[in-house]
């Protein structure tokens, strides 16, 4: 089975470039040049230098005594939370802003949900000296205000997205609209493995530094050549694509994607696109997303703003259909419990997004000698308020019993 894009930018039936004519030449130009740029030794040298000295790579593959004990196996955390900016997002933004400069673009736009991608874009733009405009849903601006201040401090202009549900999908629409109005000078830095070709593949390649390091680290730490399981959370799916990338063609490595079930798959408040979505065309590609039978896009719900997106990237839709990856739906409460437990037991506060991957472990069976790698995609500083509220709520409910 092939898990790479074909010459037209499709993973099986998913992907492609469904964009209005104004954007066609940009997409075509990027599609023709991105692979050459990514392969260019000069580009690779510059990006590697920044990933090492600016981001702080490589990130540790940390053996977790707590999780290993809990599941009677060998659990390792890929510590993307230790990246500068606080998540894996910066692996992608540095790469894309460097590509934008090579293409002669002078202005950056990006969308953000929780603010992680917005902050990582603002940092890359500050470092590489390009003005940037970050679209963020008005609702998200309110619930993630510290990140809004961070982006502003980094010199970015934060533009509220006022249309639709005023969350990530609408911020994405607004970023596309900005690009339609400024196609000549502007580069759109998409934050996940979504959007028109070549974005899903380009972002997957930029994030594949995660699986490249895992591939090197596992033999050093375990004596095994490959991990047995790689687990990652999926909103659009960039940290999962990056964690899976070098294992896609190694069927002995089980790939597990944790989706946000929100308040439950049948609650009407969910973001689990493979469970509740169907094939359609959104944000420039053919993929799976939640929609009405008339094809209107549904609002997603997840406690984690980073997973609060109605669709998934085309690669993941394909991994789902082919059975290459197993998709598990994790509820808000399961994720919060897993995040709080890791904080208490191991002194690591994970982003609520990443806590979905931790919670997925309880849905799986492991052998004692299995090597299980979980991508800890981000840190939970941005989520303190949610964790504290939930923790207090649980204490109160417990006392009442």
């Amino acid at each position, binding site marked *: 089975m092939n898990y790479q894009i074909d010459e037209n930018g499709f993973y099986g039936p998913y992907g492609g470039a469904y964009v*209005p004519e104004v954007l066609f*030449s940009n997409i075509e130009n990027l599609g023709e040049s991105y692979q050459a740029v990514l392969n260019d030794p000069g580009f690779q040298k510059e990006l590697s230098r920044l990933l090492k000295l600016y981001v702080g790579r490589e990130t540790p593959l940390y053996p977790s005594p707590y999780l290993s004990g809990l599941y009677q196996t060998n659990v390792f955390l890929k510590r993307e939370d230790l990246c500068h900016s606080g998540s894996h997002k910066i692996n992608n933004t540095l790469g894309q802003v460097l590509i934008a400069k090579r293409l002669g673009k002078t202005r950056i736009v990006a969308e953000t949900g929780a603010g992680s991608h917005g902050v990582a874009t603002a940092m890359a733009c500050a470092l590489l000296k390009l003005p940037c405009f970050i679209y963020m849903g008005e609702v998200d601006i309110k619930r993630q205000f510290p990140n809004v201040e961070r982006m502003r401090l980094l010199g970015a202009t934060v533009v509220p997205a006022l249309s*639709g549900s005023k969350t990530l999908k609408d911020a994405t629409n607004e970023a596309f609209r900005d690009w339609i109005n400024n196609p*000549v000078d502007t580069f759109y830095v998409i934050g996940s493995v979504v959007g028109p070709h070549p974005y899903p593949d380009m972002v997957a390649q930029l994030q594949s530094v995660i699986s490249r390091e895992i591939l090197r680290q596992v033999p050093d730490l375990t004596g095994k050549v490959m991990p047995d399981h790689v687990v990652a959370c999926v909103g659009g799916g960039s940290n999962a694509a990056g964690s899976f990338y070098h294992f896609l063609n190694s069927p002995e490595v089980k790939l597990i994607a944790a989706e946000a079930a929100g308040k439950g798959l049948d609650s009407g408040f969910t973001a689990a696109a493979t469970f509740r979505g169907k094939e*359609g065309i959104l944000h420039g590609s053919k993929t799976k997303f939640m929609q009405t039978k*008339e094809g209107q896009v549904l609002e997603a719900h997840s406690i984690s703003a980073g997973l609060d997106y109605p669709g998934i990237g085309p690669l993941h839709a394909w991994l789902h259909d082919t059975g290459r990856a197993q998709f598990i739906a994790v509820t808000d409460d399961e994720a919060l419990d897993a995040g709080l437990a890791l904080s208490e037991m191991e002194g690591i506060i994970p982003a609520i997004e990443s806590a979905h991957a931790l919670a997925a472990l309880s849905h799986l069976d492991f052998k004692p000698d299995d090597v299980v790698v979980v991508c800890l995609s981000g840190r939970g500083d941005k989520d303190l308020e949610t964790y504290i509220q939930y923790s207090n709520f649980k204490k109160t409910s417990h006392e009442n019993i």
Partner: protein
Amino acid sequence: MKIFEENRLKTIFHSPEKKVSIYFTAGYPALIDTVQILKLLAESKVDFVEIGIPFSDSVMDGEVILDSHKVALENGMTIEILFDQLEKIREQVSIPIVLMGSMNPVYQYGFEKFCRRCNEVGVNGLLLPDLPLDDYENYYRVWYQQNDLAPIFMISPQTNDERIKRIDMLGEGFLYALSGNSTTGGSSEIGKSSDYLKKLLNHKFINPVVLGFNIKTKADIKFANQFADGAIVGSAFVKTLKGGFDKERIVHFLEDLIE
């Protein structure tokens, strides 16, 4: 199939006069207004109409049309209802109709069934801005042809000459030339891309060329007609519908707009 009768949209371009088209969103401002607005436009000097299929996430559209989509969806507008409305009124109005919208609602309705229903209810052209030319050629063209549905494509200042040629070869009815790089109802002045507009004038097209986006007034239409075979007014018209269907206001707007 109407084999012997030419598509009405194509017929109107046989005459040399410049054409004016109006865009409005199906089901806006009220669900049933599609029919009244269409009747009114058919009685006016407007040459053909474009009816927008509302979509929750239309990236091509600016504030005014986005708002109309939102209201239309809240009103319960669907493709099925639109076809029913058109079917009932089509005997009474002969004005050519182009449907315009994002791919996904059409894709979910079923592309073949959609084209067949277009033919049954008298739709003459279809414009889906995010439909790739390759997909059109590989999968959908046959259904347009079987149902006498003119495929309308856009060109923009970003479209290179080679691609313009390809689009002109594939398109029928007319080519929809964007007045500039923008979403609908943008504030940018038309005529900003003067090299592009001159190119439109000098290029030998197979199809008539109609200019759209940011055309709001009689003066804009006059300007557009220097370069093209006609002009389309969208957001400015949709704005006059805000607050409810008002026949007098619409008639007044059209009188101001068209010579």
